[in-house]
């Protein structure tokens, strides 16, 4: 045994801990990246989680969050029982009694069936960080309510819509930078975001290969730390930078002219004469009706070779044609026209680098050099890949042209009230450089590219909201013209969040941040039941947090709550749980089935579609039930047609059964892999009863590699276009011409100007729509600036997500909270000195809408006009089962308290949003700083009274503090 002064070790450091370990694969959900993971179990308990080396998305790597999944699984904040608010107690007090699922379902069935039979729109379903929008959206549609959205309107709908309406796809899992072939990578307004691990992998490889990485951001953290160059910029001004870059590229002819002529609407002729078609594309009447945003056909272009107007397709793309990009022309019938590109030229002519310098803070010479570097790298450092391809008009291209300048952008562009036009200007920039779906540029991921405008109209007909009847369209979609808005004849909104109304017509992701305020106000009507899934709407998933919390408790003159019934489904005791009337405990990602579906948000790679699943690797804790099962159960009880057989019996046993057997179109279901009765038909085929087993046996993922000839230029790649239609990803196989000029926006502008024959907006919204629905991109100051005194509030305040946390989910994680247990406001030392605020000192941060107290850190990694903090670390005392007085509540803070959800507008108020998409403008807030007084308490403000624990929490998880799982000999 132990020999005195022996040098032999007693403790054996090499003892294997892999014996008796079972390994199961599934998909992570610590964020929405959805990496493949291996879960190592001992005695049925999770012992270790690592990246699955055989998974195409992450290839074995895993981030800090994914590695900490164990502590999420055993979090003491886990809800384990359905809860009903004790009669007589107030919302927010958190006083509940545990009830059975049977009772919970009976309550919901009774209430929802009554609503469905009388006034279905009184039921509102809003979801947060979910991955199952195809199912939740289907539920809302089948119920018959238009009042449904996920979190996109609060998050980054500008990024999605701004690019989809321009190039047919966007960043995140819809597309991204091709760093394998790029030489220059420009990352703008990006913090940590999903999908994150693939970005990290690609960036590491890119830097090792000597690629040049420029980061444009007010702050230098995270990825920007390893940028070869950091270009600081003032928040909300990126659009001005892009306009100046466009100016320079065009001035120096650093644009891909052949690309613009063939693959975009740049040469298409725009009507200049005043009238009904002013600013829309001219069309050949003999060839049929005028095209609109959905139909690229029937446009005209000017052929310099023959000196006349020709049909844009197919005439315009014949051999020998030379389509004009510049000039003014007259059609045979006398109509004055100009190519769209000519109008873009005229638009950018005054947006010089000097103009942009005054706005962005970036020196004009730096802007010039940046434009030059982008243009020269894309066009003169280009190369070709030996991949032949056939375009939509039959031309055989012997090689694929690479354009080695790639971009990535995220919330720094999107979360502003000028975000849509800013993103559009970036998309136009990327298009002028010829980088769309080219090697080294921006590459789509299936099911994108989609049509511009995608063929998914949002539900919009007030007459089609009927008792016990599904809607005749999905609640969310992409409007192509004013006739598709969800408004009444008098122009008032149809939906509780005012989405798809004249206030913000292209609100493709809804407006989650408006729901509570509007419901309490009864604008446009009162609702009865609000069901919130995985969204912390009484805390960080809201603006003006303290007011919203009060509104949840607001009562009418009759003494009843203005939102009569509030249901919260979550896995954890978030701040929102205390406000619920009914709480449903959700499972964690390790305890459930899930799909990362092509019908929803898949994990496709550049070279082909990929979808994946989660399978349970441990039993559900307590009485937790996956939310999908709750929806299937309710849909069956309420006898939704899609969930009910002809004989009235229940169609789907459970969620896995639903996933296997539900078909959105013949042969197209939630999962692509191993379809067909024998499991051999991939992508499209009959349901396979063993589909889940096939995924579980194959790392929970299905990947299809497309032939090389179909991997690039997919907006115009004939075999790919046919393939995408055949597999049900698109309804049409038309080429997707890039929208340098957005005639879709012009249709709304014409309506506002009273020039169109169709539907027109209410008078008080005409000027707003006419201003912002500009068919060409432009920059304008964020709307907040016109509503506040910018001298009194000179600083921009923004937030970003830290790499080790994902919203409020993770600041309760025992390991992750040791990385960030609280947050500071980071201030440039020059700015801090001017305000008298010390490094590590307490300060008051005040906006026109609210104030808070927090600690400050001096940082040279932030431009002087900006202050920033991490989002979602600050917590309410007692929430998430952290000790009252925990750093998160005592020292942490939410910037949300300073942000308004509404701005004053024409005798009333309007959402604090982008006027095009309704995107919440939460990075627009302006603040000032002053030091706190020495006698003030050393804690953040506001502080809340600690919320009591609810019944059924997994508090026994505390014993896992040391997380010993070994059977030590």
């Amino acid at each position: 045994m132990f020999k005195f002064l022996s040098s032999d070790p007693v403790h054996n450091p090499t003892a294997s801990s892999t014996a008796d370990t079972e390994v199961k694969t599934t998909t992570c959900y610590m964020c929405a990246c959805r990496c493949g993971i291996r879960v190592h179990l001992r005695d049925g308990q999770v012992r270790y989680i690592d990246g699955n080396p055989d998974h195409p998305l992450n290839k074995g790597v895993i981030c800090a969050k994914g590695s900490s999944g164990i502590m999420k699984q055993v979090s003491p904040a886990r809800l384990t029982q359905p809860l009903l608010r004790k009669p007589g107690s107030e919302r927010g007090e958190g006083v509940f009694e545990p009830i059975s699922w049977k009772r919970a379902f009976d309550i919901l069935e009774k209430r929802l069936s009554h609503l469905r039979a009388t006034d279905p729109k009184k039921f509102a379903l809003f979801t947060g960080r979910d991955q199952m929008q195809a199912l939740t959206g289907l539920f809302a549609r089948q119920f018959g309510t238009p009042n449904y959205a996920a979190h996109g309107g609060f998050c980054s709908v500008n990024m999605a819509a701004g690019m989809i309406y321009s190039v047919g796809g966007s960043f995140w899992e819809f597309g991204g930078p091709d760093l394998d072939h790029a030489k220059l990578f420009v990352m703008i307004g990006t913090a940590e975001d999903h999908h994150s691990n693939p970005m990290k992998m690609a960036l590491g490889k890119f830097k090792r290969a000597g690629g040049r990485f420029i980061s444009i951001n007010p702050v230098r953290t995270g990825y920007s730390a390893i940028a070869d160059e950091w270009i600081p910029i003032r928040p909300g001004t990126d659009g001005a930078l892009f306009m100046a870059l466009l100016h320079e590229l065009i001035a120096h002819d650093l644009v891909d002219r052949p690309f613009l002529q063939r693959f975009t609407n740049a040469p298409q002729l725009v009507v200049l004469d005043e009238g009904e078609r002013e600013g829309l594309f001219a069309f050949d009447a003999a060839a049929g009706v005028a095209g609109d945003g959905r139909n690229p056909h029937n446009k005209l272009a000017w052929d310099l070779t023959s000196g006349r107007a020709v049909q844009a397709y197919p005439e315009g793309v014949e051999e020998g044609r030379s389509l004009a990009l510049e000039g003014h022309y007259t059609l045979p019938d006398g109509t004055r026209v100009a190519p769209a590109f000519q109008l873009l030229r005229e638009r950018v002519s005054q947006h010089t680098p000097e103009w942009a310098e005054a706005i962005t803070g970036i020196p004009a010479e730096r802007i010039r050099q940046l434009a030059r570097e982008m243009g020269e790298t894309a066009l003169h450092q280009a190369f070709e890949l030996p991949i032949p391809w056939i375009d939509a008009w039959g031309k055989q291209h012997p090689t694929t042209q690479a354009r080695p300048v790639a971009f990535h952008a995220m919330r720094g562009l999107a979360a502003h009230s000028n975000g849509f036009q800013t993103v559009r200007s970036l998309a136009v920039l990327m298009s002028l450089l010829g980088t769309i779906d080219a090697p080294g540029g921006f590459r789509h991921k299936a099911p994108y590219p989609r049509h511009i405008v995608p063929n998914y109209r949002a539900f919009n007909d007030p007459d089609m909201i009927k008792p016990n009847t599904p809607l005749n369209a999905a609640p969310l979609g992409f409007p192509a013209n004013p006739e598709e808005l969800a408004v009444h004849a008098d122009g008032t909104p149809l939906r509780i969040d005012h989405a798809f109304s004249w206030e913000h017509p292209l609100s493709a992701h809804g407006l989650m941040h408006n729901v509570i305020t509007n419901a309490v106000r009864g604008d446009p009507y009162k609702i009865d039941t609000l069901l919130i899934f995985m969204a912390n709407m009484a805390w960080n998933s809201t603006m003006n947090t303290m007011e919203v919390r009060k509104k949840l408790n607001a009562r009418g003159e009759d003494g009843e709550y203005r939102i009569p019934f509030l249901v919260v489904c979550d896995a954890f005791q978030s701040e929102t749980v205390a406000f619920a009337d009914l709480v449903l405990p959700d499972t964690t990602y390790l305890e459930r089935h899930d799909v990362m579906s092509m019908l929803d948000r898949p994990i496709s790679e550049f070279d082909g579609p990929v979808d994946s699943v989660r399978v349970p690797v441990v039993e559900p804790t307590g009485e937790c039930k996956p939310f999908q099962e709750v929806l299937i159960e309710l849909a069956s009880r309420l006898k939704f047609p899609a969930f009910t057989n002809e004989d009235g019996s229940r169609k789907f046993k459970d969620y896995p059964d639903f996933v296997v057997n539900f078909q959105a179109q013949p042969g197209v279901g939630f999962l692509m892999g191993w379809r067909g009765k024998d499991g051999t038909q991939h992508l499209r085929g009959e349901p396979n009863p063993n589909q889940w087993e096939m995924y579980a046996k194959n790392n929970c993922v299905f990947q299809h590699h497309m032939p090389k000839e179909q991997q690039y230029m997919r907006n115009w790649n004939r075999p790919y276009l046919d393939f995408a239609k055949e597999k049900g990803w698109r309804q049409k196989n038309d080429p997707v011409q890039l929208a340098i000029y957005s005639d879709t926006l012009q249709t709304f502008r014409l309506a506002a100007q009273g020039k169109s024959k169709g539907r027109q907006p209410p008078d008080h919204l005409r000027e707003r729509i006419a201003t912002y629905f500009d068919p060409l991109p432009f920059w304008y100051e964020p709307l907040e600036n016109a509503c506040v005194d910018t001298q009194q509030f000179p600083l921009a305040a923004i937030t970003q997500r830290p790499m080790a946390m994902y919203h409020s989910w993770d600041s309760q994680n025992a390991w992750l909270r040791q990385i960030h247990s609280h947050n500071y406001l980071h201030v440039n030392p020059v700015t801090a000195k001017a305000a008298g605020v010390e490094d590590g000192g307490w300060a008051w941060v005040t906006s026109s809408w609210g104030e808070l107290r927090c600690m400050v850190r001096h940082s040279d990694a932030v431009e002087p006009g900006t202050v920033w903090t991490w989002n979602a670390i600050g917590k309410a005392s007692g929430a998430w089962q952290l000790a009252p007085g925990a750093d998160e509540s005592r020292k942490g803070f939410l910037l949300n308290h300073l942000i308004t959800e509404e701005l004053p507008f024409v005798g009333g108020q309007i959402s604090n949003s982008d006027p095009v998409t309704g995107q919440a403008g939460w990075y627009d807030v302006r603040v000032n700083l002053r030091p706190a007084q020495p006698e003030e308490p050393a804690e953040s403000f506001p502080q809340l009274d600690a919320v009591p624990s609810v019944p059924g929490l997994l508090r026994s998880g505390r014993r896992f503090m040391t997380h010993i799982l070994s059977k030590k000999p």
Partner: protein
Amino acid sequence: MSQHPNEPQTLAIQLALVIDLNVCVGCHACVTSCKEWNTSGAAGPMTDQGAYGEQPTGTFFNRVQTFEADSYPNTQTVHFPKSCLHCEEPPCVPVCPTGASYKRKSDGIVLVDYDKCIGCKYCSWACPYGAREFDEERKVMTKCTLCVDRIYDELLPPQDRKPACVKACPTGARLFGDVKDPDSEVSQAIRERGGYALMPEWKTQPANQYLPRRVTKQPPSDAARAEKDRL
């Protein structure tokens, strides 16, 4: 006293990590993947005090510190992971009164024998890098083990026999291997990229090395290139 069993000697094999500061984005994957592997493995448990309390604190073998250098607008932000550097002349070893702190002759990994450690903390005073952490619950010193329980475990597939942090790192900022083998990945990286030791003035000869930042500068413009060709 008998000859100290762990007197420094030249080893044939020295396993180590190489950390590439050129691509570390500070994501902390290495921090928590290490924690989760080790807390229920041979080197664990890695305890937490007040895990859900007011100010959580706990044992980690690897931490990432982010610091700023220079001033605005030329600020450099550096993400800096740090764990035991498995020095070839480890000052933590000779100071240990019980011999709990030792360096393996077979591969150069420096370890703590928990069953001999009396928690005097002398070794953590000796380490100039602050790489050791005293576990408040178990009252023993703990540190990076270079996943010695993974790298030789034949129950693991060969490609997994590397430290948890190396496997996790999404940007590929962590390399693992034998720095005495000139053909190893780590030796090549050190040679080709100018890998450097931390605080060489302490004469600890750390086995772990860091790779410096490499900046890809703005390329010359077409006009400048043409001018150069002309000349």
